[in-house]
């Protein structure tokens, strides 16, 4: 059992910074940068990237439907993510609370990354045996 678990922090909302002044944007940006770097230094950052709000949504059998982003609910749209490795959900929550966008209306969603489930682990371990049978 690994002692750390992975969590995905999803930053929701791409409108919250629209009304900020240049000075505020710079302040939030530099705090966000400092936050990211600190997690890197502590070895907790497994990867993170910003997402543009344009894009496509594919659905339907064989991808019949291709619709345009940005997504109708811009409050829900994901603007970026961090993948972090920490000891507990509590620690992940503490980290998420430091998001500099929160005070301006950004929303952080924490999703634990699922461990490989028992059934598929069993299948993988026995893969060779069944193949040879």
């Amino acid at each position, binding site marked *: 059992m690994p002692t750390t678990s992975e969590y995905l922090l999803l930053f929701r909302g791409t409108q919250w910074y629209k009304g900020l*002044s*240049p*000075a505020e944007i*710079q302040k939030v940006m530099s705090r966000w*940068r400092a936050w990211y770097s600190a997690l890197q230094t502590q070895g907790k950052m497994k990867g993170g990237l910003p997402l543009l709000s344009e894009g496509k949504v594919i659905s339907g059998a064989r991808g019949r439907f291709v619709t345009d982003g940005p997504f109708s609910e811009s409050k829900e749209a994901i*603007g970026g993510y961090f993948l972090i490795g920490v000891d507990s959900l509590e620690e992940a929550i503490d980290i998420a609370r430091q998001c500099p966008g929160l005070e301006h209306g950004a929303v952080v969603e924490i999703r634990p990354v699922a461990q490989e489930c028992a059934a598929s682990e069993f299948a993988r371990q026995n893969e060779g045996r069944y193949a040879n049978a």
Partner: protein
Amino acid sequence: MRTLDSSETSEISKTQSSEMPGVVEDLFRREWGKIVATLTRIFGIERLALAEDVVQEALARALQTWPYYGIPENPSAWIMRVARNLALDQARREVRFRNKQEEIAGFFERSFGDPPVAQDEIEDDRLRMIFVCCHPEIPQEAQVALALRTLCGFNVSEIANAFLTSEAAIAKRLTRAKQRIRAARITFEIPAGPELTARLNGVLQTLYLLFNEGYKASGGDRLIREELCHEAIRLTDLVAGHSAGNRPQTHALAALMYLNAARLSARTDSEGHILRLKEQNRSRWDKSMIAKGMFHLAQSAAGTEVSVYHLQAGIAACHCAAPDAKSTNWPQILSLYDRLVELDDSPIVALNRAVAVAHVHGPAAGMSAVKSLRDRRELQSYYLLYAVLGEFEAQLHHAEAAATYFRRALKQTGIASEQHLLRKRLRECEKQMASAVTAS
């Protein structure tokens, strides 16, 4: 001729942010002012809002990406490049701007070079923007709001905080200003010929107002107020550094701003309480700002005209030049006030003159100078009148009369730091009165 670089000013007058190595504290604001001005020239003054949207979006892109990828080597060029792409997108989308594409691309190309050849163009555009914001067709309070918005990158809530008014009121002022620009067909250009002098006077007056708004110690967030002073200085430097604005009067205004702003941080103690001039720790005065002020003062001496800015700068220079309160050249200050009251009949100037009179000829003379104030009625509700009278009475050892004035002054001001000083003075008087009673 360029006198001072605006980036130098902000470096000297402010401490660098430690949060962000490699990025100057006011970078986004500076870039905002520059790019908004240039895009406004390209898109047309009636599309000011479009220029603002483009720059806002460019800065938002920096917010979205720099935290992950780090700060670009040349942050300003990065923002410029993104703004160029967004402006080009806009030009492609709107039929009426199709012909602007070349102009946009051309301008930004020139601004990326090393040295950027577009430097002069940017300066011209910013000066054009200053002339638009300070156009006499726009009501003056709206001029200040517009300048803070378009040139300094303040948003509505920041302007409202600075002026202790509601966001709705500021939004209304901005809307009205933009309507005036359209209705009066204000053009985006630097005035020339005989018009220039009158328009330049308007610009200086608005910048002076902006500075005063920040300088006066009345309520509100101290840091925001100091920022107003720094922005006013930055804009005045810009005007003084441009051939169209490089006049003795402009330098006099710059001198008065530097020489007063240099003493800003020494004006209050660690708890934010007001310190009187004689109580201030003069080693906390900003020496580099004083030096710049003196430099501008020297520049302002060209020509024969003596403006109110010259006289006020001269008075501030007398204070800055004195190593301690005792060695202040009060006779010189009084003679400057004597000339100032001839140009400016405001009762507040006359009240300040009375203080100088008291320093030169004693408190009784100061008292009669106040009593002979022509427009004393206008001052009836002005707390400083009573504070000054209280000081004079206290110096004359009339503790009871002084206490009465200080109490009256206390009633007239709602500002905590002013009240604190007045209460302190009142207590001192009451102590004197008590000991006088014991003695007799």
